């Protein structure tokens, strides 16, 4: 008697490969047969086959029914029900799809360069150039026979044995690969092991006398069609994974005979393909692979995910690709602009010389900036540290200018595995970070699991309200061995650098005391075993529970430092789930009461002479920095990419002004008032209109288009805009009303756009005058480009300065002075001269 259970899919992305494999894992060892019927699509599947499950195309809220039939069905159904209720809703996390932005306007420099331009969807940013290498579609060599097998049993045994071998090969690769490549191997292995996949192959051989090649061809076509029929982009992209497994299987059976025309890169190349499987991608020589153009893949295909991890500029969604005959030529994949540029002209080549200059210019400047000590305008040091999640990130963090690691989240070591990491593995990981730090401070947070981050091997019960439940320090006593192992690994690692241990979710002094006892205990054991460690290793707490925020004084008697975990603190303080976008107004760190709380924590810590830092997302945003400086933090820890920007902004801030700003902010009534206050603060910020680096005295631009591009590129290099294309576009829109060449060899192109962070002026003197369609018909020698923010209310110091400049520029003597000066600093001084004169 079969058992049935109705089921409504709770997963936002539906049952794609990952949830399907979680389901399959549960029923794999059932003695009964389990089928799934999707009532909407009327497709049903054997739940022991991942491919069949995904083929039913179950989407969010689809009504389905599971049927369990056969020996053991009662127990099996019970197990399945528990899984569906407790674990299934949480078995998926969204794949990080690439943002699909609408194509940005092209620079006229490129647009009018005479090259052929195809627009595509940029899925991995960057610019790459190389010779076109076309990559054929998936195909099985025609020479391999497909039909007419005499001994079907023998043929199937051959195919089955190859499947076994392929599986063994996957097992082997799992040992030698890690990260995204390992995940990929797992996906491919699950396909090769799939019951439906194997049944399909077997039926083709035994029932239709097809050869192994014929059977594989059939299976590929069958499952590709199945996946293509699903409305889910993520599923459609799994077709590439099926193709990969089929190709690998063919190679197992036929050896070299299975090889399709091999693509070997011998010089810088752009691979252009209708589709490219992950395996085919990995087989390409990445030394020469400069770019990738794909007709069909989207942001979640494994090929694209691989391309991203190797930084190969990639364009996708180029559906017209099949119709293009490139021939043998050099092309450019411009995934910054979202363009494939072929039939390169001299002008197009020149454009990319300028692009190269723009990108390296910014990189060089950021490198210089990130290498400086983090300090305010008047030299107050505030450590800018990095948040990391794996030991491997540490080197990159320090290269990005981190002055320490402010938060190493160790959860990653514990998640997604069947057994916890042992002491040796942990010791190695912590020591690696300390080695990378080379004497700089490192804060390692003990594992923050439980709650929304469940661990299979802890077997924690499902909670109604996981964020308010058993997580972090609250579960340490229950899993004391696990915690002791981590502490011992940390104590041992402390010999290798300046290590601090941080405890998450501390709410009471009792918790702090318990942790201190364990630490002291493990230190004593190490001492007894003559193991080296740093007895001065400090122990501190995350301040993320409001109770801790109000207990800093008492906690200070147990602990050495505090770090504000602004994400959790905010959600606990405002009682608002930070993942709930409907509650975004409450989850706003600019709520005056929250800022007041932050100040309270910092004041209390300072009164106890304890270090106080912040390591939540709030710390990574340059906008909030004045408030954080006002609060009086000693350290801010943020994601590595934010570090250079934070250091730059910090160097412009005055602590006294920030303190005053914060005082006003905490006395505001609403977050929008604080927001307006911040806007005003930045408007008044003394970022000068022009600086020496914004004066170019020997521009080699050869056209008006190039002059404008070079001017806007300076803004990009100097970090005044992140979006050159938008600023350039705004300048050209203004230029369309009438030319800004007002005669006398001068032009004053300008625009109003919030794509610039600060009102800015760039001055370029041209080596060769260029035509500008000027009022007096003469070419232009000096160009003054103005980019002004649109949002400023009426009176603004910069606007007055600009009005003064505009008037001054009509003065012959002033123009002569500008033309005479040949040092950027001198030109800058002349400009600032008018600004300072009242």
């Amino acid at each position, binding site marked *: 008697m079969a058992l049935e259970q109705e089921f409504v899919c709770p997963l936002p992305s539906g049952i794609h490969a990952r949830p399907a494999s979680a389901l399959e894992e549960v029923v794999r060892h059932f003695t009964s047969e389990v089928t799934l019927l999707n009532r909407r699509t009327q497709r049903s599947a054997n739940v022991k086959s991942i491919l069949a499950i995904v083929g039913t195309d179950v989407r969010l809220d689809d009504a389905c029914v599971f049927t369990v039939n056969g020996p053991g069905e009662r127990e099996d159904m019970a197990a399945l029900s528990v899984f569906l209720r407790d674990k299934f809703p949480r078995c998926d996390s969204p794949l990080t799809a690439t943002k699909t932005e609408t194509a940005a306007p092209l620079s006229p420099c490129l647009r009018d360069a005479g090259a052929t331009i195809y627009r595509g969807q940029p899925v991995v940013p960057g610019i790459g150039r190389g010779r076109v290498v076309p990559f054929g579609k998936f195909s099985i060599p025609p020479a391999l026979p497909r039909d007419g097998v005499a001994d079907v049993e023998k043929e199937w045994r051959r195919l089955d044995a190859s499947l076994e071998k392929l599986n063994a090969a996957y097992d082997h690769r799992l040992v030698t690969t890690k990260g995204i490549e390992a995940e990929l191997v797992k996906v491919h292995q699950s396909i090769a092991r799939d019951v439906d996949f194997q049944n399909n192959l077997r039926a083709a051989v035994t029932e239709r006398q097809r050869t192994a090649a014929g059977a594989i061809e059939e299976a590929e076509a069958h499952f590709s069609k199945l996946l293509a029929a699903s409305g889910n982009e993520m599923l459609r992209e799994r077709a590439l994974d099926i193709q990969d497994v089929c190709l690998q299987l063919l190679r197992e059976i036929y050896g070299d005979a299975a090889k399709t025309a091999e693509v070997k890169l011998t010089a810088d190349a752009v691979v252009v393909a209708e589709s490219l499987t992950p395996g085919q991608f990995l087989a390409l020589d990445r030394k020469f692979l400069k770019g990738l153009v794909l007709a069909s893949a989207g942001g979640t295909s494994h090929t694209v995910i691989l391309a991203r991890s190797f930084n190969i500029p990639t364009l996708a969604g180029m559906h017209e690709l099949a119709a293009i005959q490139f021939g043998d030529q050099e092309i450019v994949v411009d995934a910054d602009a979202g363009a494939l540029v072929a039939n390169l002209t001299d002008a197009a080549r020149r454009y990319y010389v300028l692009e190269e200059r723009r990108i390296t210019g910014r990189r060089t400047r950021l490198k210089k900036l990130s290498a400086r000590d983090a300090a305010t305008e008047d030299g107050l040091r505030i450590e800018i540290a990095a948040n990391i999640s794996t030991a491997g990130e540490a080197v990159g963090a320090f290269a990005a200018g981190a002055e320490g690691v402010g938060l190493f989240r160790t959860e990653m070591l514990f998640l997604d595995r069947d057994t916890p990491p042992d002491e040796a593995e942990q010791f190695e990981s912590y020591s690696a970070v300390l080695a990378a730090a080379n004497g700089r401070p490192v804060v390692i947070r003990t594992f923050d699991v439980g709650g929304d981050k469940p661990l299979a091997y802890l077997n924690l019960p499902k909670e109604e309200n996981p964020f308010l439940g058993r997580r972090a320090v609250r579960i340490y006593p229950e899993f004391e061995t696990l915690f002791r192992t981590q502490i011992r690994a940390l104590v041992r690692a402390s010999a290798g650098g300046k290590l601090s241990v941080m405890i998450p979710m501390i709410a009471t002094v009792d918790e702090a005391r318990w942790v201190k006892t364990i630490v002291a205990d493990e230190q004593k054991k190490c001492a007894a075993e003559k193991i080296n460690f740093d007895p001065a290793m400090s122990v501190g707490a995350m301040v993320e529970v409001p109770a801790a925020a109000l207990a800093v004084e008492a906690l200070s008697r147990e602990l050495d430092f505090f770090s504000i975990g602004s994400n959790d603190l905010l959600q606990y303080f405002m009682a608002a789930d930070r993942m709930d976008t409907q509650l975004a107004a409450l989850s706003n760190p600019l709520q005056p009461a929250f800022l007041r709380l932050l100040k309270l924590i910092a004041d209390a810590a300072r009164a106890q002479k304890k270090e106080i830092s912040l390591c939540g997302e709030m710390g990574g945003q340059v906008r909030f920095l004045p408030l954080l400086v006002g609060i009086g933090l000693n350290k801010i820890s943020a994601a590595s990419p934010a570090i250079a920007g934070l250091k730059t902004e910090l160097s412009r801030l005055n602590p006294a002004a920030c303190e005053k700003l914060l005082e006003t902010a905490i006395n505001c009534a609403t977050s929008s008032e604080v927001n307006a206050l911040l806007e005003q603060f930045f408007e008044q910020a003394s970022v000068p209109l022009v600086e020496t680096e914004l004066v170019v005295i020997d521009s080699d631009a050869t056209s008006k288009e190039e002059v404008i591009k070079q001017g806007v590129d300076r803004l990009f290099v100097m970090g005044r805009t992140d979006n050159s294309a938008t600023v350039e576009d705004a300048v050209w829109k203004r230029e369309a009303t009438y030319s800004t060449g007002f005669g006398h060899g001068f032009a004053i192109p300008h625009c109003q756009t919030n794509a610039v962070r600060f009102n800015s002026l760039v001055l370029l003197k041209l080596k060769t005058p260029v035509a500008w369609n000027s009022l*007096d018909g003469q070419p232009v020698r000096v160009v003054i480009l103005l980019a002004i923010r649109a949002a400023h209310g009426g009176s603004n110091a910069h606007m007055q300065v600009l*009005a003064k400049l505009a008037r001054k520029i*009509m003065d012959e003597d002033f123009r002569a002075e500008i033309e005479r000066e040949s040092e950027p600093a001198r030109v800058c001084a002349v400009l600032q001269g008018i600004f300072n004169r009242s």
Partner: protein
Amino acid sequence: MKLVAVTACPTGIAHTYMAAAQLEKTAKKLGHTIKVETQGAMGIENELSQADVDAADAVIFATDIAVEQEDRFSKARKIQVPVQAALKDPEAIFAQLK
């Protein structure tokens, strides 16, 4: 002559002020007195009062966009030119006054 003028360009960042400077300079050279109101990104500056307008022999509009508070000038003798004309050949504008 006693003149008043208004300058205004589309973005109000540059040409409004360049034209104002040019009109002031040329008026001085030709021996006229002039008060120029700018209508730019900062709003109206050096605003012309009704008395200023009434006392003037003529008003010059060097504008590419609609003039604000135009009713002030309803009775005045007006000369309308594009902003660019004030930059390119300001003396020609004053020649129209004769």
